[in-house]
């Protein structure tokens, strides 16, 4: 399919804001910490009075993406912007809170996977095509290809691919399945702004875990956020040649490959 161009990237992670905050070696930088959290973003307390931390992280990632593009929110408002959201486990804290509090005062709709993209859509007035995928890195790569397909068929003029992962509220639960993860768990929220581009985008799969874990070695375990964080990282050094990101989940490795550089812009200076 025709490859989309990456207009801008927004990234918040347990390492800090943007790709520049990412370490060279996640395990070493974690210095024994098994999990690195993102602080609750400070946004309008009235407007977001009921919103959960993971929802605010999604909103903040889109704001960071707009800032990176030098655009205002009016650039994405309306029905010509598609929103594709992916996560492996961002719903886990709300589900747990609802289960353990036996209902309590938590507003039940916030337990839905759709809660994060719903808050983002409401905040930015995004009323175009809307899809939500669940899984690790391959789900996010699938979301990028869905965005490419929607752009190619003219269903939208631009697409946001957003991923959010939170671990802090369920740190003890993730700890119990620790052997499944490489490196520290790193919370993140990442968003790409995609526009029609040139070249070819391919998605390939193979059984088994990937051999080259270089991006994960730098990022830590970001689950669904990993491909977007890897794209943010690669933009700093990318040339005009082909670009590939990889990700593994449930015994399968997926490769997402652009035939030429996907980047339309360079990172803005901090």
């Amino acid at each position, binding site marked *: 399919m025709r490859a989309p161009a990456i207009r801008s990237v927004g990234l918040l992670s347990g390492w800090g804001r943007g790709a520049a905050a990412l370490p060279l070696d996640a395990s070493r930088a974690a210095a024994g910490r098994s999990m690195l959290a993102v602080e609750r973003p400070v946004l309008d307390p009235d407007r977001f009075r009921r919103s959960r931390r993971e929802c605010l992280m999604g909103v903040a990632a889109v704001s960071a993406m707009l800032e990176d593009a030098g655009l205002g929110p009016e650039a994405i408002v309306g029905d010509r912007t598609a929103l594709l959201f992916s996560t492996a486990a961002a719903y886990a804290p709300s589900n*747990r809170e609802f289960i353990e509090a036996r209902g309590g005062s938590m507003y039940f709709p916030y337990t839905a996977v759709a809660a994060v993209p719903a808050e983002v859509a409401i905040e930015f007035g995004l009323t*175009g095509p809307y899809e939500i995928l669940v899984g690790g890195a391959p789900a996010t790569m699938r979301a990028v290809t869905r965005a490419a397909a929607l752009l190619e068929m003219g*269903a939208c003029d631009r697409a946001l691919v957003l991923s959010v992962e939170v671990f802090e509220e369920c740190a003890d639960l993730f700890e119990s399945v620790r052997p499944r993860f490489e490196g520290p768990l790193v919370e993140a929220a990442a968003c790409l702004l995609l526009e029609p581009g040139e070249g070819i985008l391919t998605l390939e799969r193979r059984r088994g875990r990937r051999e080259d874990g270089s991006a994960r070695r730098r990022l830590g375990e970001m689950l669904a956020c990993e491909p977007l964080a890897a794209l943010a990282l690669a933009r700093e050094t990318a040339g005009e040649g082909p670009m590939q990101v990889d990700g593994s989940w449930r015994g399968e490795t997926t490769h997402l490959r652009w035939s030429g550089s996907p980047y339309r812009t360079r990172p803005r200076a901090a």
Partner: protein
Amino acid sequence: MRSKGPERIAVTAAGVVTPIGQDLDTFWSGLLTGTDGISQIERFPVKDLRVGQGGEIKKLTRAVDWRRVTDCRATRLLVSAADDLCTQAGQRPLDVGPERLGVVVGTALGGVEEGERALSGSPRRLGRALYDAPGHGLARWLGARGPIVTVSTACASGATALGIGAEMLRRGEADAVIAGGYDILCRFVMRGFDSLRSLTRDRVRPFDRRRSGLLLGEAAALLLLKREREAGPRRLGTLLGCGSASDASHIAAPDPQGRGIERAMRAALAEARVDGADIDFVSAHGTATPLNDPIEAAALRRVLGTRAGAVPVNSIKGAFGHAMGAAAALEAILCLLAGRHGQIPATLGLAERDAACDLDCVQGAPRALRPRLSLSTSLGFGGCNAALVIESA
């Protein structure tokens, strides 16, 4: 009038497990005869809830070797529906190489009941609590080694899954895709909807003047999709279009003007290269909540145009409640079966039409009609909207 559009995707078989039937024929017969799938919930405690009834499947009756299937109800519903699908297809295993068989399932709740069990002392169940676990369990049972995707656009999930499955075939990622949706009744979701006061103590009455809320049901529904040119003569119909849109209005309630579902319908019609005036039948979301039904009816009238009053409409929610992630796939199957059998089932629970839902809702008895083109609508939490356009064989 249709112009050349995207490659056509055939539905060659389907399978279901529902409170009114655990195979396609019994399900269809139950819809036609007005079988009531609502009962008191027995599988988990509900005494502390305002409402303790729903569309519960009392026992899984298909002859499946359950030792090969994870002890997870969501996975078992999916496997039951897949077992029916294989029977309907007359192929066991399916006649497609494992690497070329994809699975795309939609769900609102995934394996959340496994999360409940893990947190109450069965930590080994934790891995099954992730929402994509049941879809992978289904793929294992099928022996599918192609792409495995889980979508969660709340109660529109089944429609989104069918759209993604169709796209997967058009891109050549698979030669066959099993797509659809599922969800189970569990304490988590019953408590949730109970807390919202969304559940009725009466019966579910879609588009009825006396409607007072929904009831939840559990089900799984799967469709076997293939590229039409490779599908062979045996088929239920064709998936012509799929559209989605966000409301960007409220975390739970639909947009008061129904603009999101209208955009989704128009997107599905555009992909199908047909017009609202071409639609012969609507399988509506029709939850029977005071809010949903008039909003959806108004959006349908705008999309169907001058023929709106003459297009028969059905909601299956009256028969066994809102099956959440399974609902849209069940409704797609209803459209296909209506075309095959030449009958539109009546909407169970509808007795006194609401003037605010000014549609031609089929009530009382099935109506003889063989729809060629059907439209199915779905709405969900988070402002999720999706629509499908389906052509009968």
